[in-house]
């Protein structure tokens, strides 16, 4: 479906995408990376809006920048708001479908179906100037779906959606993948992507840091100490106990009474912690893993890439 070989994109002296190679078969993939990591540049390469400075890129067997007719098979939802205030959502989607070569009648039917599919049936004939952020996001998604592409490329498609909207879109995208079509979804929120697909591409600083299933990514991180924040009374006593038990790699005291500990086996720590604090004056108020967030994941991956493991 998508094949990149040493693809590099330079913006003058700035590296947008740095020597990225991968081959994706048909299916759903999450492109994860913090803001400014090169996700949008990579998507713009895939949708033919940019040409790689170095390397090659093929989407559905074609070079999208040189053979723009392959874009007929791609649906793209950019991150930015593309809003025409004076036209209705229906007119907007119909217009964009017509650019694919559909007749006006066919484009109208497709626009209507796509807008209904994303939950915009009620508001599709209202001007877009009056749309909420979530409605604009749904309309943008509708224009990407309406021409029934083989590959859907979405850049932060769940931004601005309320929880119900997120759930609806998540179900829609899961059914899209189940129907045998391709999906590449860029996001900087791990759980959003995990809810839709279990295949990840992790990108940071324009480089592809890791790829594979959720299990593979977790396995990759198994040897990296997890950071756990423990908010408690009696932090010194707890630290002493944890070090004595050999349960942690590092201990750091934080302001406000608490510890940040580093451990390679967080599950073991979670399981045995109640036993260690039982019958002591230690009171644990809060326990949370600081590695839950994507930045921590990428920090860990970058440490691996720098050989600091």
């Amino acid at each position, binding site marked *: 479906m998508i094949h990149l070989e040493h693809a590099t994109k330079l*913006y*003058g002296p*700035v590296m947008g995408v740095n020597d990225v190679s991968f081959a994706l078969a048909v299916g759903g993939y999450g492109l994860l990376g913090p803001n400014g990591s090169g996700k949008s540049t990579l998507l*713009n390469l895939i*949708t*033919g*809006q*940019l040409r790689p400075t170095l390397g090659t890129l093929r989407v559905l067997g074609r070079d999208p920048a040189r053979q*723009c*007719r*392959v*874009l*007929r*098979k*791609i649906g*793209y939802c*950019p991150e*930015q*708001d*593309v*809003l*025409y205030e*004076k*036209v209705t959502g229906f*007119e907007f989607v119909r*217009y*964009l479908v*017509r*650019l*694919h*070569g*559909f*007749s006006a009648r*066919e484009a109208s039917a497709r626009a209507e179906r796509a807008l209904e599919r994303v939950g915009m049936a009620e508001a599709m004939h209202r001007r877009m100037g009056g749309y909420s952020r979530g409605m604009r996001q749904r309309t943008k998604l509708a*224009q990407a779906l309406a021409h*029934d592409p*083989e590959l859907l*490329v979405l850049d932060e498609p769940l931004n601005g959606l309320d929880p119900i909207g997120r759930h609806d879109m998540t179900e829609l995208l899961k059914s899209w993948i189940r*129907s*045998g*079509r391709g999906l590449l979804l860029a996001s900087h929120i791990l759980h959003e992507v995990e809810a839709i697909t279990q295949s990840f591409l992790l990108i940071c600083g324009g480089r592809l840091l890791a790829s594979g299933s959720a299990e593979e990514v977790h396995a990759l991180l198994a040897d990296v100490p997890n950071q756990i924040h423990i908010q408690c009374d009696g932090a010194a006593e707890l630290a002493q106990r944890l070090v004595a038990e050999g349960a942690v790699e590092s201990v750091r005291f934080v302001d406000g009474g608490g510890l940040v500990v580093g451990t390679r086996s967080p599950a073991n720590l979670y399981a045995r912690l109640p036993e260690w604090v039982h019958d002591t004056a230690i009171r644990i108020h809060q326990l949370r893993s600081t590695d839950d967030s994507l930045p921590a994941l990428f920090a860990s991956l970058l440490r691996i890439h720098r050989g600091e493991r």
Partner: protein
Amino acid sequence: MPIHDLGYRAWQGRLVPEMFRFWAITTTGIRLAWQNRWLRRIVYVTWLPAIYLSVGFLLYEQFLARDIPARALKQFITSFPVDDSAPGDDRHGVWSWLLWVFFRYPQGLLMVLVVGLIAPPLVAQDVRTRAFLLYFSRPITRLEYLLGKMSVVWVYLVAITTLPALLLYVAAVFLSPDFSVVRETWDLPLRILGATLVLTIPTTLVALAFSSLTSDTRYASFAWFALWAIGWVTYGVAMASLNGTLDDRWTLISPYHTLGRVQSWVFGLERGPLAQPVLPALIELAVLSVVSLAVLVRRISSPMRI
């Protein structure tokens, strides 16, 4: 047991031929522009001069039939090129002149207004909304995009200049004594098309270039009207200060007068020993068009380039 493929199935219907993809951009642009109440009013008004000039054709045919004197024609239009002392049958020349007057004066001014209302938002709003991301992630080339946008302006310009001019010609044929006049004036419809090209190509390109340079429609409108107004005023002031003895080459400072010069050449009115060379005006329009096209292409491509 048969195994059914329930996966993705490509659409098997017919698509619009690729060479007409730009038309979707054009028709949408035309429809959106037509929502402007002021544009609708001006377009309706643009047909009035054609009705007025059709009377000119009628009077001229009566003059040829010796039914009315040249004085009556000059009351209609002061500079009507007829003379009682030499009532030669120069139907081709007079019809050309009337059609040129139509292009040059009423339509030349109304064109500035119409283009000033249509063109500024055409590219500027796509710059503002970053719609290039959506256009060029579809099977649309930058050239097709440009063609689609330019065609919006062309359609309106054809509607306010070419169509009424052609109808004016047809009306003139019907007002003449018999259809043999077609043999004499067959080239005028072609000259109308030539004058249309001279009018539409540079004006459209310049207007869209202004539109592409800003995300604010008002700036593009201002630049468009300023171009014509400053050129006109500068030429007028120069003429006045030199008591009308200005060299004709000075028309090049005014786009309006440059267009008029080329159009008069297209209609065959620049003849005789006193005719001024039209080449400088043609070169100016060509340079203006090429520079505007280069700006447009650069601006349309630049959102994806750093």
